[in-house]
């Protein structure tokens, strides 16, 4: 029996890996399907059982050249970038302050509570406010709305990163001739640069993915990409093909960038509760 011990270990590992591969298939199948769909000619899109066909670029051409999708992409980009920049500008100093000066657990937690606020409570007044300011159907409205959840997320995220920088670093900087504020931006900020990048990417992804606020606050020219995607609602082949393309455009970049922040995510999402 002894001699086969290692074999048994190997077979059980193979079994476990085959379970993982099933999970992998379940995860990947929709992606593969949407990719295949985006390459189908319109008359085949609505037929479920066709896997071999002549690849057609017509859906991609339709979307990229003859639809509003490029505009929607730009809108989403602008909203995401501006939101994240504002969130970093206000969240970064505050996160440092939370991390370095003994703030009560409850104050820290209010940030998380803000993140958890249901969008339903925010949307009504934000809508009415923007309505009165005639900012409905502009990107400013969406940016304002996205700030309500991106700022808390980014701040919460950064607190974790600042917590991990040893205090002696700014002590040293202050002895070396910096004021506390100089120590913060000359020494601590560069040290947490990876954290800043991760927080920025994560905040951007959240903004890029939101549909609820954008659905209510934008229209026509100002629609963001998810809202535009939501517009592909019919089962007509032409529309479905375009939808497939639009979905791919919306998810592929996010999948790529998120790959780089995965390992930082736990800290960001779980706060101090889970260390990675």
């Amino acid at each position, binding site marked *: 029996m002894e001699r086969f011990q290692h074999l048994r270990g190997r077979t059980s590992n193979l079994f476990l890996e085959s379970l993982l591969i099933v999970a992998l298939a379940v995860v990947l199948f929709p992606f593969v399907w949407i990719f295949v769909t985006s390459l189908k000619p319109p008359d085949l899109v609505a037929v479920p059982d066709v896997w071999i066909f002549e690849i057609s670029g017509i859906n991609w051409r339709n979307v990229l050249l003859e639809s509003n999708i490029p505009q929607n992409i730009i809108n989403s980009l602008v909203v995401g970038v501006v939101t994240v920049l504002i969130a970093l500008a206000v969240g970064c100093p505050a996160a440092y302050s939370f991390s370095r000066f003994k703030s009560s657990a409850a104050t820290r937690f209010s940030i998380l509570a803000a993140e958890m606020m249901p969008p339903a409570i925010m949307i009504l007044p934000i809508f009415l406010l923007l309505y009165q300011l005639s900012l409905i159907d502009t990107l400013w409205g969406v940016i304002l709305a996205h700030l309500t959840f991106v700022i808390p997320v980014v701040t919460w995220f950064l607190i974790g990163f600042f917590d991990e920088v040893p205090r*002696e*670093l700014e002590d*040293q900087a202050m*002895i070396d001739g910096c004021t506390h504020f100089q120590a913060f931006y000359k020494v601590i900020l560069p040290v947490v640069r990876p954290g800043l990048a991760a927080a920025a990417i994560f905040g951007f992804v959240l903004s890029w993915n939101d549909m609820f606020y954008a659905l209510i606050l934008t229209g026509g020219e100002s629609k963001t990409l998810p809202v535009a995607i939501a517009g592909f609602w019919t089962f007509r082949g032409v529309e479905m093909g375009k939808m497939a393309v639009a979905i791919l455009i919306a998810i592929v970049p996010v999948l790529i960038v998120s790959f780089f922040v995965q390992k930082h995510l736990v800290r960001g999402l779980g706060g101090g509760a889970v260390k990675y």
Partner: protein
Amino acid sequence: MPKITLENIQKKFGKNTVLDGIDLELGEGEFTVLVGPSGCGKTTLLRLIAGLDQVSAGKILIGDRDVTRLEPRERDIAMVFQNYALYPHMSVYENMSFGLKARGVDAGEVKRRVIQVAEMLGIEILLNRKPKELSGGQQQRVAIGRAVVRDPSLFLFDEPLSNLDAKLRTEMRTELLKLHRELHATTVYVTHDQEEAMSMGDRIVVLNDGVIQQRGTPRDIYFHPVNLLVAGFIGSPSMNMLHGKISGDRFASLDGAIVVETKNLPDGDVILGIRPEDIHQPADLTAEQHGCVLNCRIDVIELLGARAIITLIVVGVELRAVIEERYLKGISEGSDLIVVFDPDRFHFFDAVTGRRLNRDRFDEEQGIDG
């Protein structure tokens, strides 16, 4: 190099008094070691001198300059931290030049000084590396180099050697001392390691519970501890403590095992302290030094190399003694051993207050209160 004066320093965190009435003068160019068990307030005191924390009351003077309310950057000090606190995103060169640049020293001068100090410490080939590419010992050197290059009026060290392995630690100890001889910079060095304190300090300050227990040269501290606390903390293995009574110029331990004559000591409950190094073989001492002869049973022998620690049992009391290896011949655990004491090396402490009772010529000179 100026002297440092601390006047009645107090530090409270909330309701917690961490330091209470510290008065201390550190002489020019002196290497002062602050030593004490963890939590005694030594690191806090260092941070107060650095200006990283603010005193609750009291005054700090560097030379004649009152720096009590100054920011760390205005105090002209350099500090080496336990974890080195190297800026991880900067190269060794940038780390060392950061402080000079922040003070507006011109680029050529910065370069000259960094290279000079790097050569002195043997780290010139590391100048372009990042801290994470360095070994612990190298990081340590860079941290010291970063302090030296600033040419400050005061050096502060916060347990700088405690993250190194034992061998490197002894090496760096010697090297730091050489550096000090060269620079003659006023230095305050914090450690919890009494051996480090003894071997490095020109002067030692023993702290406990936020109060200075004793200050003096390593010799003073070792041979004339002012109370039980210092006596127990300094020296390894630590001092043997025997409870007993003095009446009519005679000390008798509680179990009656040890009885010695005393001079000029008041009657009452006392504790007799005997350093393990002061327990001898009869052949080591002249007959008139044999103040007390004891027949013991050997319980445990721990061989250290040239010397051994032996645990002796006399009437239920344990005594630890350090003897030379050559005496181990012919004895073993369980066998009997005769040891002698030199009564001049006895330390008597008041059993209630813990204060040292026997006053010798030294104590009179130092003006140490009994």
